[in-house]
């Protein structure tokens, strides 16, 4: 993890699917569990992007990963217009 600010977290971890990576992340950072999950399910205000695409439009947590893929996780707190 290189940075954690504004609810935006960048990860550098290996795994076969998004779910694997999340599991590894939580194993080494258990304090993140309540931020990301609610009763075993991903919280609805958490966005996960794989190479900039929301996993909602891929295969969700089962989205497969390649070596160079980047996962971005952020909470949906960002808003702006002016």
């Amino acid at each position, binding site marked *: 993890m290189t940075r954690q600010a*504004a*609810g935006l977290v960048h990860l550098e971890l290996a795994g076969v699917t998004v779910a694997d990576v999340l599991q590894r992340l939580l194993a080494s950072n258990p304090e993140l569990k309540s931020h990301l999950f609610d009763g075993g399910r991903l919280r609805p205000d958490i*966005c996960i*992007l794989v190479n*900039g695409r929301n996993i909602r*439009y891929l295969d969700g947590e089962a989205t497969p990963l390649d070596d160079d893929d980047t996962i971005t996780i952020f909470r949906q*707190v*960002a*808003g702006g217009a002016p």
Partner: protein
Amino acid sequence: MYGWMGTILRVNLSTGAITKEKLDENLARDYIGARGLASKTLYDELPPRTDPFDPANLLIFAAGPLTGTAATSASRYNVVTKSPLTGAIAASNSGGYLPAEIRYAGYDMIIVEGRSEEPVYLWIKDDQVEIRSAKAMWGKGTRETDALIRDETDDEAKIISIGIAGEKLVRFAGVINDRERAAGRSGVGAVMGSKNLKAVAVRGTGGIKIKDGAAFREAVLRNLAKIKSGPVTGEGLPTYGTAILVNVINSHGILPTNNFQLGEFAGAEAISGETLTRDLLVRNRGCLACPIGCGRVTEINWEGNRERGEGPEYESIWALGAACGISDLELITKVNFLCNEYGMDPITLGATVACAMELFAEGVLTVEETGMPLHFGDGQGLLELTRKTAMREGFGDVLAEGSARLAEKYGRPELSMSSKKQEYPAYDPRGSQGIGLGYATSNRGGCHVRGYTIGAEIVAAAVDPLTSAGKAKLLIDVQDFTCVVDSVGMCLFTTFSLGVDDVLPLLNAATGVDYTTESLLQAGERIWNLERLFNLREGLGREDDSLAPRLLQEPLPAGPAKGNVVELESMLNEYYQLRGWDNEGRPTGEKLQALGLG
């Protein structure tokens, strides 16, 4: 009347006539206030094809029936006129404290017409209205003007003013109120300058009559709870301001970089909301009755001095940053301060300089024209051109016309990233299709706040940003609801947590009118169609509902939206159909009848 003050102030600067008119109750009900009511006035009174700088153009400062009440974030007004940048209708929105003061002084709208021979300002103290000389303020920045006028009038007065850019008729000059709040877009400040009107100062000591106080209080408290618990309004905007979007939008590969040549900016982190919060933020600042408080008071070290001001917001950071390939946040902040001081729209400024940078890279512009090398990433160049543009000095005189006229002048119109001659904001629509349709159909030209589909496409991730299916319907719903929000006088940011059924009880309790969800949204639709009718009468049509060729023909070269262009044609056809417009984008007779516009 309840909710509305019931009085319109009209000032003719050519004759010096000052009159007060009764607000027509039916018009108030049908067009609500602020953006809606002022657009109706402009449509009815402005002779077609009037030059925006002709004294006959109207400049209308309009608040809504909730402005200045206890409703959350109901701090807004609109400045409506015919735009010198686009030739279309301009409705520029701002918050702060001044909008409420107009209402406390007893007015829903101030209509300014004609042109004064000499620089003047208006001094409105409740029902006393004077036209005073502004010779002492002409040539001064907006902050100094604010201070000088408060010295001459009342320290508690709230001021709208123009800076040097408005005086010099820079086509994208804005107006500044409460020293740092801007009705920034479409050149409303240039129209003010063309009238020799330096400022409007207002002091109001009256109140607003609410029809059903108990119901109103209840609705306010319910909305307040929703705003406080909403992730964007309760946490994101208060903590990080709008600039939190820099990293989010860049992660989606749609942060337009180097005049929309790329969708990812290598310097994003350096200009992000997180960096701004860490390095420059002094404190938050909010508008009247707003629990969100998204404004940022910032401080920079500049040439050995500490300088303090407000901003930059996400859009300015992008325009003065990524659009020009610049990643120096202190410099961006300094330029933003200067834009407030000169009264100039930072979005169009940055986008116009970005266009000039691409023309320079293409060899179309040379040092002979620009007076300096102008490469992407050149912060000092941007700084220098900001001043020159406001003063219309040297090459700045060309930039002061905006990017469409700049690119046209040098034979490369396709390099202006604009629709209806107004520059796009900070989202590359090739990776967010709905906002592309929004830019193309916006009644005031390239703009995100007429139909902020980014909320659904990116922020809430409720719909896939890369697909065009369903976007016409989404956009229409957002455009019509936005008309309502802008017209009641609430801040658009509340819509991250509130919907039409949250605004409805406030408006009904305040005014005593029995709007329903349907009739309120229909009022929004009526306002949108009226703005459209204004533009059609001015000669704009389907060919103007378009996008820069780059967005339609050049696929994004990299990132999550790689390979995509905007699928405009199909979305536009569906949009016209759903709107009840013909193939040329004209509302059908049936639609006009249904909206009471026939």
